[in-house]
């Protein structure tokens, strides 16, 4: 039984990792169509490094990812605190709207945002993309922070308020430090979601502001491009580093 379990785990990890491993291996293959192993090359990486429009798109992606994640964290954290602390009319509606946004298929959101931007005669590009990404990141941050706050003793904040701390002060000195891990997690998640998003970006950005996932999409559509293998290997390496780094830091923290 124990052996069976291990075999199953290995097989499933194989399923998760084998396709990526093949891509990485083939990123060093000189064959143009990748139908056979030709010879070892770093050429595809070199051609990535010189592809100005790809680097531009990557920069755009990082920029939008950082800004959207930060905006979502700002609005989402404050919103979560509001929902957590106060009882107000429409609180249930607001929460409901958050969950609906969280669960609705990206394509539905993409379509509705496109209709909004066209109705407002907004030029599709950086602004529309940033607004859209912030919108789909927002519920993730709010819900993450809210669930962390829910685990705390409400009296802590009330005690602070009793001691004369203003709302801002209570927020800065008590709520924010408590919620920080959730905010950080929300930021990281938002950043990843933004960097990964194809569906929404496909609808709401314009040619002036190309982003990496769309660039990859058009490369992938064009069939076998060895550069995609190299790019895949790089992106995989980045997520490997980020995730293991984060896990390592979490592990080291004293319990």
């Amino acid at each position, binding site marked *: 039984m124990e052996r069976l379990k291990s075999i199953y785990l290995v097989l499933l990890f194989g399923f998760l990792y084998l396709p990526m491993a093949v891509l990485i291996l083939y990123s060093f293959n000189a064959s143009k169509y990748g139908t056979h192993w030709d010879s070892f090359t770093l050429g595809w990486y070199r051609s990535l490094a010189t592809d100005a429009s790809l680097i531009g798109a990557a920069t755009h992606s990082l*920029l939008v990812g950082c*800004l959207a994640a930060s905006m979502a964290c700002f609005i989402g954290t404050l919103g979560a605190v509001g929902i957590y602390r106060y009882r107000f009319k429409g609180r249930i509606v607001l929460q409901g709207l958050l969950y609906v946004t969280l669960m609705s298929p990206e394509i539905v959101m993409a379509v509705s945002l496109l209709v909004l931007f066209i109705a407002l005669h907004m030029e599709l*590009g950086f602004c529309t993309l940033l607004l859209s990404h912030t919108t789909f990141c927002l519920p993730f941050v709010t819900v993450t922070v809210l669930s962390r706050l829910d685990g705390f003793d409400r009296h802590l904040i009330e005690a602070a308020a009793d001691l004369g701390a203003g709302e801002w002060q209570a927020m800065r000195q008590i709520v924010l430090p408590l919620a920080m891990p959730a905010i950080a997690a929300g930021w990281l998640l938002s950043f990843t979601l933004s960097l990964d998003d194809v569906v929404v970006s496909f609808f709401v950005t314009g040619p002036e502001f*190309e982003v990496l996932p769309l660039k990859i999409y*058009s490369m992938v559509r064009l*069939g*076998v491009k060895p550069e995609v293998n190299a790019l895949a290997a790089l992106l995989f390496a980045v997520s490997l580093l980020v995730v293991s780094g984060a896990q390592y830091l979490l592990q080291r923290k004293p319990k």
Partner: protein
Amino acid sequence: MKALALALSLFCAAAWGEGPAIRLFGWSDYLVQEVLDRFTEETGIAVNYTSYDSNESMYAKLKLLDGGGYDLAIPSTYFIDKMRKEGMLHSLDKNQLPNYKNLDPRQLDKPFDPGNQYSIPYIWGTSGIGVDTAKFKLQDVQAWADLWKPMFAGRLLLPNDMREVFHIALHILGFSGNSKDPAQIRSAYELLKKLLPNIRLFNSDAADVLFVTGEADAGVIWNGAAHRIQLEEPSFQYVCPKEGVILWMDSLVIPKNSPHAELAHRLIDFLLRPDIARLNSEKVGSATPNLEAIKLLDPKLRGDAVVYPPNDIVSKGEYQTDVGAAITIYTEYWEKLKAE
């Protein structure tokens, strides 16, 4: 915090500090990178190439952007007519295009754009049948109607292009590929429904790659892609079907609100230069309407019937034209076909 601010400002600098770049919206693999790189080298102007896989999606995107965003597009003839009439195009200044004189007068001043006020012919060619003779016998595919043979069950590659696919069926039925008659379009749809079991995929992005990597071994293909496949796979053959090929010509246009119309003129003129038009024709594998470029061509390529179809093939072929409001009928049947 400081590090984050620094990183952000660096991103901003990189994102907005780019010099002027022409945003080119074209069919995939329609312009070789080599040509674009040479343009950048000579002029210092970068070219950003984005591809589309059908006239419809190109048109929809330009509509969405209200003619802004892109500086150059390469629609097919019948879309130029439509876009011109809808005021989506920027009129061209021939004074900025000294190389315009190199073009074959027979390819100019066509009904879809009288006087070439809005468009410059770029390349033209045929759509026919591509077949890997290692898998199928050449004599089995001599006509469009042969594609319906059961031997092709689940094997065919078709372009993801509504008008093109309907053109074939209309042709077999003896109608014009530009029919506006709902009954004729309907019968073409009925015929295409029978072709469905033979279709493996619709794709007009990467026909060449699909053949070379062994995913496709027969299908409808543009002559340019056919030429490129032949260079990789000698067993591949391009057939001009008995009923007559589909002819196409794609032209360079500048969208109405192009941010860099002047630079776009420079790129058009560059592409009209004989040596560049020749290089492009050789690499893309389709014919150039540029007379001076044809003079420079390798005689082998000039004589290649795939790339430069002989007159008897051309005279039997048919161009697509704008079908006006009938386009919605096509669209509806096309959707039905793909959802089938």
